[in-house]
């Protein structure tokens, strides 16, 4: 697959000027910058950063890619989820109704890989394109009104990517996303260390405990110590 490159360089080179300055600083796995992604290719990572940032754009809080969501998705696709650990994969495969759910004949990693390739071919200007174009394409994908070819239904592809992006923004930072508790800080979720027996009936009182993740070390941001392999799931 020949994907020996710096992930920082890949992610830095992908979007508009404003995000460009922020990315190298906020990128989640600075310590792993010299290592390749586990699963994604350069083009896929670029595409995903554009796509995820359309779903969760930067405002007062980081965008999806700034919060490490591309790293999160990379790990998910490389791990059991991407390989179909949570799916019944016995054939035959038929197109079903929406009510019958996921009927794609590919495990998620391969589905997303082929889906991104088909979408990039249909919309070559997407990654790095302007906001209007990205919004338009993402909307059409979410409505299932993009033809990606047989076996690659558009709406399930969108659902898969949106669930991953959303999960990456809010899952425990040990999975590579939610960097520096970006998602938890945004909503005010205190995290995995949860003991509210004295407080649940204190009405309308803020609980401003800074978030603590599963691997929280006082003073750190809850991601895995560099050099350790992040959690795959």
């Amino acid at each position: 697959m020949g994907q020996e490159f710096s992930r920082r360089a890949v992610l830095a080179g992908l979007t508009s000027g404003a995000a460009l300055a922020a990315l190298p600083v906020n990128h989640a796995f600075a310590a792993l910058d010299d290592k390749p992604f586990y699963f994604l290719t350069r083009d896929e990572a670029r595409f995903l950063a554009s796509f995820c940032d359309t779903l969760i754009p930067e405002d007062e809080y980081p965008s999806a890619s700034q919060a490490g969501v591309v790293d999160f998705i990379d790990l998910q696709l490389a791990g059991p989820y991407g390989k179909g650990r949570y799916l019944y994969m016995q054939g035959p495969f038929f197109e079903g109704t929406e009510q019958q759910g996921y009927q794609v004949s590919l495990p998620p990693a391969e589905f997303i890989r082929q889906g991104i390739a088909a979408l990039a071919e249909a919309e070559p200007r997407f990654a790095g394109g302007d906001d209007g174009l990205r919004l338009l394409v993402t909307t059409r994908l979410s409505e299932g009104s993009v033809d990606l070819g047989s076996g690659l239904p558009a709406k399930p592809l969108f659902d898969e990517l949106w669930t991953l992006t959303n999960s990456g923004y809010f899952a425990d930072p040990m999975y590579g996303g939610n960097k520096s508790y970006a998602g938890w800080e945004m909503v005010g979720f205190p995290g995995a260390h949860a003991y509210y027996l004295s407080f649940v009936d204190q009405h309308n009182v803020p609980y401003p405990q800074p978030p603590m993740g599963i691997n929280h070390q006082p003073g750190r941001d809850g991601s895995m110590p560099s050099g350790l392999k992040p959690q795959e799931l």
Partner: protein
Amino acid sequence: MKSRTLKTCVGLVLLAALAPIPAMVGAQDTSTPAVGALESRLDDERTLFAATISDTPPDDDLLELGRLVAMGGAENVGSGMACITCHGGQGAGDGSGAFPRLAGLPGWYSYKQLNDYASGDRPNEVMTGIAQRLTEREREAVATYYAVVQAPIHRPLGEVDQGLMQWGGQLAAVGSAEKGIPACVNCHGPQGTGNPPSVPYLAGQYANYMAYQLQLWKDGVRDNDPMDVMSAIAEKMSAEDMRAVSEYYRRVENPETTGE
């Protein structure tokens, strides 16, 4: 990281009228850190919540008062007892079992203990009298003060049987399925470093103190935590379990309270 507003907290109505602060008594105890040096820790991640037991942000007046109280400068100073006499100016305590570390304990937790000592909900011959002589504001202040100070832990911590340590670590991390003991880390924060505002740290606390408290909970002498959770747990523990988990946590590092 976004700066957090110190608008907090905890619904405690602390209406202690601001007592006039008596003139500073005696000379500065050089072992207590200057208030200025502590201010930055008021919005430190781990002590932020600890320091906010009123509905107004803590300020250096509160810290100044807290330090004064710690040194025995409380308004009703009849007992002549200063916190620092037993717990030290930096809250280091001692290993006898009677005097726990206070450095970096959540302020809300310490404040509640003082109230419980005063009311008798946490019976203690020495602390009850002391706490009763403190005004609400002074309890709040001294709790805040000890929340933000740091004290080193002096090493070595003494020899201990490795099997005991291993058992203690196991109880801490996963509890005991056989005895029905839930793990300490369920509630006591990352690696036992506390879960402010209500849950104190265990990491770095004195083993004798923790083992003694567990025994008090088991005996029903101490029951001042919410819904008496600790008694339910301690009742299932043997003396050896208590010793094991206490010796284990004594040796777990808690950098936020030591400044290391």
